[in-house]
């Protein structure tokens, strides 16, 4: 009887097999895929279109005293509309709230995918799949890395779909510096944020045996991560204490980086800070995740 192939084996063997398994479970399930697409459509069309902040002044018809002559009234209205555009541009960075929040939605779907990567960990444990994997010579770190990578790949695909939908629902008012190459930067930022976030959520799931616990954690964290960031609304208008939270929330940096690359005139200094923060976040949380896998997964 021939022995299996311990000697020639790659230390990361099984990593792609496990990643691919999670991806297959995802793309073979059209309902989950559909929901992943429908959810951002609902958000974008409800929140993005309903909260027409830019239209607040353009659609506003003030009643002015009759003493003001008609041409002057027209001038005032035009000036107000112009002022509102300026206010929007100063606060949101773009005159169009839809574009602002559509790009924020990319961070939003990445965040959600990361949160549910922890759920699949809990399910694998409950169904005994995890135990079976742990009885094979796969490196414990690979088990978690596979979860992280599959979440990252799913997140990037969903973010692409969101961007596509935003373009179709549109109009997406892209910034003056935008070229197709900027998309590479967008993907880099989203890669880092999803790597960091999914590491954290998998880490939370690493010891949990109940999906209810994991659901509770996801529910607890998703609102603060979402709203204590600039994903839907600019942090500059928030109270001081909330701004402090947004400054440590990695979603803020991912959203800022993607907005800079797609919507804004790029501020290289700020963009560098965004990427430094995201890079550190991704490296630190995935390292902790893999280091703890040795302690908590094996034996």
């Amino acid at each position, binding site marked *: 009887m021939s022995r*299996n*192939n311990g000697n020639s084996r790659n230390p990361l063997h099984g990593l792609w097999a496990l990643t691919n398994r999670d991806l297959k479970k995802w793309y073979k399930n059209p309902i989950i895929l559909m929901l992943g697409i429908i959810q951002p459509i609902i958000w974008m069309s409800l929140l993005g279109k309903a909260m027409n902040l830019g239209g607040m002044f353009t659609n506003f018809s003030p009643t002015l005293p009759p003493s003001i002559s008609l041409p002057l009234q027209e001038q005032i209205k035009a000036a107000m509309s112009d002022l509102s555009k300026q206010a929007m541009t100063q606060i949101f960075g773009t005159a169009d709230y839809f574009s602002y929040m559509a790009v924020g939605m990319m961070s939003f779907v990445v965040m959600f995918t990361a949160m549910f990567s922890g759920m699949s960990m809990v399910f694998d444990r409950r169904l005994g799949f995890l*135990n079976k994997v742990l*009885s094979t010579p*796969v490196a414990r770190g690979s088990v978690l890395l596979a979860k992280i990578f599959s979440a990252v790949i799913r997140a990037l695909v969903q973010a692409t779909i969101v961007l596509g939908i935003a373009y179709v629902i549109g109009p997406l008012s892209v910034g003056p510096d935008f070229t197709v190459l900027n998309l590479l930067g967008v993907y880099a930022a989203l890669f880092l944020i999803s790597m960091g976030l999914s590491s954290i959520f998998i880490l939370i799931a*690493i010891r949990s*045996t109940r999906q209810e616990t994991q659901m509770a954690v996801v529910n607890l964290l998703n609102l603060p991560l979402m709203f204590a960031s600039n994903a839907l609304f600019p942090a500059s208008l928030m109270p001081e204490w909330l701004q402090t939270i947004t400054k440590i929330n990695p979603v803020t940096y991912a959203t800022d980086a993607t907005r800079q690359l797609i919507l804004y005139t790029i501020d290289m200094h700020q963009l560098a800070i965004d990427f430094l923060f995201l890079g550190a976040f991704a490296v630190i949380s995935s390292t902790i995740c893999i280091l703890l896998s040795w302690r908590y997964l*094996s034996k």
Partner: protein
Amino acid sequence: MTEDAIIVKGLTKIFNKHLVAVDHVDFTVKKGEIFGFLGPNGAGKTTTINILITILRPTEGSAVVCDHDILKDATGVRDCIGVVPQEYTADEDLTGYENVILCADLYGVPRDESKKRADELVELVELTKFKDKQVATYSGGMRRRLELACGLINRPHVFFLDEPTLGLDVQTRAATWNYIKLLKKQFGMTIFMTTHYLEEADMLCDRVAIIDHGKIIVTGAPNDLKESLGGDIMTLSIQDGKEDVSDLIKKVPKVKEVKKQDGTYRIKVEDGEETAPTIIDAVRAEGHKVTRLSLTKPTLDEVYLEYTGRSIREEEESKEGFAAQRMAMRKARGGRAMGGHP
């Protein structure tokens, strides 16, 4: 290479500091034998298996599986074992074939080799026709067979089966037994299995260990254990059973014990088939008429009864209190297997 596939010394597992699941267990499994761990639910069978397959760390003691220490060389152990867990662990969303290939990848079997082996194994467990169907559409028996194929993909030296027929119907159970026998014949590997079905252990295992409350009570070949009870059981009734013929029967050679219960005699005899006619002759010679006679070979049921003082079925049926302990153990096991230190 030693003669023993598994050597276990003083293995102990205590969950949450007070729940003793496995209590200083010692045993060895010889190369090439089917070794059965027999005991009621909650006796510590799965905990022992989980320690041996390196997903649970023992509180005390050590074990060596195919010459690798489970603590010092866990990867060495993992390389040479195959595992069929109690639960169905195949991924329902994938096809049967994809599951087998996934297992091959987890062992690092090169792709061309894994395809060859997967085809062979799927054929062996008679799933070739269904290999491209999603596992969600499989029946319980098919899923069990798929688990067998997955567990064999790395050509293990020691194959662990945790309750391989749990929850299967009678036909599927018999079919699974045939597969296990076939595997032993075809690959000559060592098989370590747990079960709480006595007839299963009797039929498949070369040797069994009876485990109860975390302790091994007795180990031996099923036939030896049965013979250790002192032979066959014969029951006999005679007409006008007022007169006691116990002393008469006791005089017959090879009769070991006679008990009279409600007019029938329960007789322990050696070589029952040969001794029975002699007993009948002896009784008739005194003018008694034999009205009923039966001869049974002792089963592991009797062995279990003898050593634990209760029947395994009683144990199964008296679930109150016991179930609570089992639940606690399952919970602790699940938490600890994954969790690590609290």
